[in-house]
Every structure is written in C-alpha cells, then in structure tokens.
C-alpha cells in the first residue's frame, strides 16, 4: 500500500515539477483516520500530502466540471470509476481529453459499500499507469436491489419511494456529486419554465427523483456518488439502476463510460426496437 | 386438427424454425446431396410445415436420410434451419413409432457398442448391423484387407471407465424426453 502511495506522490511531484500540469487532484488525509478528502495539489512539495488507502472513496472526476477551461492540464488520479466518468464527460463535450493528464491507479477496492458493485477497477483511459492492473472481483448482483423493489406490489412500491422522498431534504447533493450531471443550470433551479416547484413536499421530491433518474439514467456510470453524498442516506441509486436494468433488457448489455464514443440509449434508436405501443 | 397443429407448432419452436420464413425457392432441395432418394424433398418438408401436415413429415423417409450436412441452411436465403427441424422430426417420429427400421438398428447397435466399451468399435458396429439388418455382404469385401493390416482388431478398444459412460448414457436416455 505505502509503496503505491509513494508512487503516486512521486508521479504527482514530477508532473508538477516539470510543469506538465497545473495541479493534481487526489486524495489527502483528514483528522479522522477513516476518512480522506479530495485534495488539489499545485506545488511539487504538496505531493507529499497525497494518500492512498482503503478510505479513498470519493470519486474525483466531478471536480473537472468546476474547471472546464483550465490554463494548464489537470492531473487526475484515475481508477475505473474516474476513467468511466471522464469518458462520459468527453462524450458529453464537457471536458477535453487533451486538457487532462490521467494518472492511472488500478483500484484494489475501497471501504465504501458501493465498491461492491464495481465492475471495472482498472482505468479504461489514462496517460500513465502507476502499477499493474488489478483483477476485477466478481461484482455483487448489479440489480439485486431493483429486483427487491420490483417484487413489491404497486402500492408498496409507492409507499417505499414515498417514504424515501419524504426524507429527502432537496439539498441536491446527489446532483452535485454526480459526474454526469453537467448542465450549466439545473432544470430544478429554473422556476420560470415551470417544470416543477421548489417546494419541499413529497410530490415535488418524488418528481425530482424520477426526473433526475431520467436525466442521468442512460448515462449513469454506476459510481454511486449520489448515494454516498446523500446526507439522509437515501437509496436513490435504485432509480438510476432501474433505468439501467430496463435498458439492459430492452437493448442488450449496456454499460456507460466504457469508451468516449458510444451514444447514450435515449440519444439514438434502433428500427428494431421493441414496440409495445401498437 | 388443432391438436396436430399444436404439435407441429411445438416441434417447429423446438427446432427454432418459423415455417413462414420459407418462400419455397427450392435452393435447399437443389443442393441436398440426398434429395434424389427422398420421398419428400426438403422444400416439401417446409411446405408440409406451412400447410400443417405434420404426419407427412414424420412418415417420410426424408428425415432419416438427411445426413445433417447443413448445406440447405447454409445456402437458405432466409436461414431456415432445416437440419434442426429434421432432428426434431426424428425424435417425434420415434416417439410415434414411425422409426425407419435400418436407422433404428444402426443407432441402437451404435449405442449398445458405446455402453459396452465407451468407444466405437467399427468392425463390431458394421458386423452387428449387417447381421441384424440382414445385409451380410455389405462392405465385407474390405474386411480381409483390414484384418491383415491391423486396421481393425478383434479385441475392442475400451475406455478405462466404460462403466461410467454406460451410466452417463443411461442418464441421457432417461432425459431424452427433454428435447433441446
């Protein structure tokens, strides 16, 4: 572990010293031993504060959206999840590959619960790979939770989600953490169009939840940041995963962010798509 | 009538064949190596499937003469899997007792052979077949050559574990009601 951490520090230090990048995004220690925090290292000396341990759970890619027009390249430590996010951001024309320096760090699985679902530990795109790729562990059943909800009766399902959204405080942490949420202004902040109200009510919260799933569901890279960020601990990935499950059933194997070219499900069509509206 | 059609539909479904895919162009028959000996040509089999005449298919010698060479489906413009249909039809015909005698003898001798030795003893297979099917002279002119050159031995080759293969075959026979 410490060997890898050392490699990361050396790599960041060299990049900064050579002026290859303006800053590097990585993980740093906090005063809690079981937590890390994203850090932005902009001097070679600062590289020493990078850490790599099982608590490096934050997905770093989202921060790229805060600096879409950098003067110098941004260095980003990229695991499977970061790289899938980057692919998706490139496809969505949000970042340019040439303004990134991706430091590939194959992931050994972190302490976060969401890592159980991880299907790709190794970065799919990178400029340098710091160590040998990891074997992908068999992921947990991808849609287990979705099936759990599906098994309920319609009224039970409504109660389940109603209960979830009753607790939602509309803080939008899910949106803010999501690497594929990239609108300049979120529809929910635009009262004038009238898509939905800003009230904090079950109805409005539910509509926010379903709309969010629709907006990101066919581009979701399944990093789980939405759930990790949710201060109320709501199982909101259950919505986006339902989208993915249905897409998988309608059009075959579907995963997002594996490359930077694939159109998302709702952005294309197939003449032979199933038709149930006859 | 509807009963017969259900049977036909089930058979076609198992074979993965949709009878209306066929537009009767005859390319299957045109290329079939055994067509001249068949009483119902491959295109005719598809025609019977279209008009619902399962009986004619099952009673034809066609299904027993098909060599499974796959040339019909290879060239079929609509990719109709006739060999698979032939196979399902053979199972159905056997179930109904329409099995062609010579084929039945050969196949049973073959499997009996496997149950004994786990491997196929060619000499024994041909010999037993000729005996039971009463064709004592078929291919016998080659036997002396084979014996002198050691191509076939009197002692059969055997797997070490022929007993386990016998049990396996019996399991498969029990499962033979499950058609894939």
């Amino acid at each position, binding site marked *: 572990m410490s060997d890898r951490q050392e490699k990361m520090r050396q790599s960041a230090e060299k990049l900064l010293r050579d002026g290859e990048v303006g800053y590097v995004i990585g993980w740093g220690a906090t005063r809690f031993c079981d937590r890390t925090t994203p850090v932005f290292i902009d001097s070679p000396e600062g590289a020493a504060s990078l850490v790599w341990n099982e608590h490096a759970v934050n997905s770093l890619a989202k921060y790229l959206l805060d600096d879409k027009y950098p003067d110098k390249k941004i260095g980003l430590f990229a695991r499977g999840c970061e790289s899938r996010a980057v692919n998706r951001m490139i496809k969505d024309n949000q970042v340019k590959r040439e303004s990134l320096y991706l430091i590939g760090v194959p992931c050994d699985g972190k302490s976060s619960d969401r890592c159980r679902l991880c299907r790709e530990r190794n970065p799919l795109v990178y400029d340098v790979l710091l160590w040998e790729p990891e074997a992908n562990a068999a992921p947990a059943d991808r849609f287990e939770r*979705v099936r759990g*909800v*599906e098994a309920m009766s*319609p*009224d*039970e*399902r*409504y*109660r*389940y*989600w*109603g209960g979830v959204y*009753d607790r939602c*405080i509309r803080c939008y942490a899910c949106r803010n953490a999501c690497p594929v949420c990239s609108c300049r202004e979120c*529809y929910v902040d635009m009262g004038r169009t*009238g*898509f*939905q*109200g800003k*009230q*904090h*009510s*079950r*109805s*409005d919260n*539910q*509509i926010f*939840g*379903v*709309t969010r*799933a*629709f907006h990101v*569901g*066919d581009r979701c890279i399944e990093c789980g940041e939405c759930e990790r960020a949710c201060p109320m601990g709501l199982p909101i990935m259950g*919505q986006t995963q*339902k*989208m993915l499950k*249905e*897409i998988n059933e*309608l059009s075959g194997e579907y995963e997002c962010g594996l490359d930077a070219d694939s159109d998302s*499900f*709702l952005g294309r*069509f*197939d*003449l032979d*798509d*199933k*038709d*149930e*509206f*006859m | 009538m509807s009963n017969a059609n259900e049977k036909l539909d089930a058979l076609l479904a198992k074979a993965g064949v949709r009878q209306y895919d066929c537009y009767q162009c005859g390319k299957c028959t045109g290329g079939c190596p055994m067509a001249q000996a068949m009483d119902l040509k491959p295109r005719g089999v598809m025609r019977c499937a279209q008009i619902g005449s399962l009986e004619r298919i099952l009673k034809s010698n066609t299904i027993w003469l098909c060599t499974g060479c796959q040339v019909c489906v290879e060239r079929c413009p609509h990719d109709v899997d006739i060999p698979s249909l032939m196979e399902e039809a053979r199972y159905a015909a056997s179930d109904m007792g329409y099995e062609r005698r010579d084929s039945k003898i050969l196949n049973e001798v073959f499997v009996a052979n496997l149950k004994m030795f786990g491997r196929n003893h060619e000499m024994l297979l041909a010999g037993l077949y000729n005996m039971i099917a009463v064709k004592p002279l078929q291919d016998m002119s080659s036997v002396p050559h084979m014996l002198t050159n050691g191509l076939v031995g009197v002692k059969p080759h055997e797997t070490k574990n022929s007993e386990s293969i016998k049990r396996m075959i019996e399991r498969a026979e029990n499962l033979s009601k499950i058609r894939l």
Partner: protein
Amino acid sequence: MSLTEGFEPKIIAFCCNWCTYTGADLAGLNRMKYPENVHVARVPCSGRVNPQFILRAFQKGCDGVMVCGCHPGDCHYSTGNYFTRRRFMLMKRMLEYNGIDPGRFHARWISGSEAAKFRDTVAEVSERLRKLGPNTKYREALREGADAGKGGAGI
C-alpha cells in the same frame, strides 16, 4: 367503494399534429362518439413530449395521461417517434417502478386514418381509469396523510 362511483377521470392526451390529432379530427368528421374525459394537447410530434409533462400532469391532478403519435416509420419528421418509443418505454417502466398503476399511462400509435382506433383507445382508457378511481399518487397537496408534508420547512 363509493370513491369511484360516478367518478369521471380527467385525462390529458399529447397528440402529434400529423397523425393522431388528424385521426381525432377524423373521428369528429365521422361523428363517432366517445367519452368526454380526454382533452387533447396538440404537439408537432410525439418526440416533442418531455417526460416531465407527464409527471406534471399527475402532480396537478390528471388521472391518466396518453402520448400518441404516428406509427413507427410514418413520422412526419421521419425519426421523431423512434425516440418517443424508447423514451416512453422507459418512462412507463419507471412510473410503474415508482408505484403508479400501469393503467394510468398509455402510449399508442394512431395514424391519421385510424379514427376508430382513437375512439376505441379513448373509450378503453376512460373505462379503465373509471375503475381505478382518482389518482392520488404524485398529487401535490394531497390529504393523503400528515406524513406527506404539505410543503415548506416541515421537518
């Protein structure tokens, strides 16, 4: 339940201008009769219909929502309804997953000549919703129970 007795559902139908809206007009020309429950909102193409319109309709009190357009292959804009098809196949499943009764949302292809199909679809959907009763799910400011929280900072 007396709740459904004499109940007339309120249904909004988003219809594309070129096929279904024309079909609905043709039903009128032929003096076909169907229930009064459906109100048509005209859109240029079923591809124009944003899923959020549907959510909004449920929220504001519609008991049922229909999205209708040209049959695949006949779209006036050539490909619009192929996107509609994908979008609303997912939408339908998401609604059901969130507990909305499948009878409340219908997507249907109805061409400009299918006046009878328009009539029958409206009749069928109205009847189905009459049986289902008023929609309470997703409704804003419902008296569904205090737990719903009527808005504001009710934590």
